[in-house]
């Protein structure tokens, strides 16, 4: 019996991109459904009643919510191909630690970059760059966060790359000038089809952020 896999998503979501990348890495066929966040589908509300948020991975009718949990689930179920987590428990702990760091730090800091102005925005940019520099430090001279192979930490962070254009434009700064190694890493990831096909177009993201700013009166 063939697996039925559905992804409920919203195109600019960095979290949705993580699941898309994992599915692509494993070569899993799935049905993609774009949600209108102002008019969430009954299926979304049924599959994620606690948070009512995307992304939701639905495997044979059963929902997996929270992007990193879904990525680990995909890795465990489709374990024959393209491992996302290493097999050694200590290396797995490192991968999870850094994916968790991305979750704790990047989203909020990045949001402050485009959602604020003046002094507040300057402070936000500084904090955001500091966080990226910590990540850059952890990457070091490795091709990927996990070493030779693309893995969980890379997947947790790469989606933000297509948002960099929006951050840089609204924040009037260059991320590459501050974190060249991280940008080199991002471009390396983008050479993978699973990544380039899963990330949103930076201009689509920019337009989306502009729309949010207008709606929230944050221009």
């Amino acid at each position, binding site marked *: 019996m063939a697996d039925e896999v559905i992804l409920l998503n919203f195109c600019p979501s960095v979290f949705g991109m993580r699941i898309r990348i994992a599915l692509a890495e494993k070569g899993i066929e799935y049905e993609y459904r774009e949600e209108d966040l102002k008019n969430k589908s009954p299926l979304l509300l049924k599959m994620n009643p*606690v948070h009512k948020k995307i992304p939701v991975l639905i*495997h044979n009718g059963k929902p*997996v919510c*929270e992007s990193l*949990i879904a990525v680990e*689930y995909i890795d465990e*179920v489709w374990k024959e191909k393209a491992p996302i987590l290493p097999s050694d428990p*200590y290396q797995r702990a490192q991968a999870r*630690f850094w994916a*968790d760091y991305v979750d704790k730090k990047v989203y909020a800091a990045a949001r402050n970059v485009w959602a604020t102005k003046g002094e507040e925005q300057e402070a936000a940019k500084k904090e955001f760059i500091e966080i990226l520099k910590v990540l850059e430090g952890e990457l070091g001279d490795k091709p990927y966060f996990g070493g030779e192979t693309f893995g969980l930490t890379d997947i947790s962070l790469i989606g933000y790359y297509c948002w960099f254009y929006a951050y840089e434009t609204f924040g009037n700064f260059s991320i590459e000038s501050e974190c060249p190694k991280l940008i080199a890493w991002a471009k390396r990831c983008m050479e993978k089809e699973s990544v380039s096909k899963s990330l949103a177009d930076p201009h689509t993201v920019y337009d989306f952020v502009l729309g949010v700013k207008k709606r929230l009166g944050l221009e």
Partner: protein
Amino acid sequence: MEEVKVYGVWASPHSQKVIWALKLKGVKFDYIEEDLHNKSQKLLQYNPVYKKIPVLVHGEKPVAESVVILDYIEETWPENPLLPKDAYERAVARFWIQFGQEKSPTFHAFFRTAGEQQEKAVKEALEVLKILEEKGLGDKKFFGGNNIGLVDISFGWLAHWLEGMEEVVGIKLMEPSTLPRLHKWIKNFKEVPVIQENLPDPEKLLAYFKVLREKFVRDLPSNDQ
């Protein structure tokens, strides 16, 4: 056999989670009590990113962040499993652990604020507990089913730390009439021998909460007191 060390503080439910998991698996370890006002060089070396407890050190390899540590313990010592075998059930368990993490600011606000801010936190906290009871626990004895698992361990703070916080703040969240299943879970959880034998002294904890609460109230902007 490589040495296992745990860096923690007696009052923290996060260090206690790590201790419970190790003891449930019969893993021998050395415990090092940290002074958070004077953190040891070792702690700063083992957790340079956050400089926080708990940290587990296995051999000379440090693991930080309690959720990550619990997963590491589960995978390194698979005896007496604390997560389900089935991948889907595991994803569900991880969901509830993450839910608990996400909602901790609500409970922090409950303990650290007053007035309107606290009222808002109380309302949110009750909603969180209701969701946890209905959708997380349901009619099971433990979140893990018949035996305790990582989800129970992650919510262990509700079973022992919350009552001290409630007493100091003067507001009860965990009423048996409104949260009967969670209430029963607390009783069952504390009867598990490893848990029962590894809880901070309630009197000491209460005194600790009193001092903490006084400090938080003092530091509130005057119109919030």
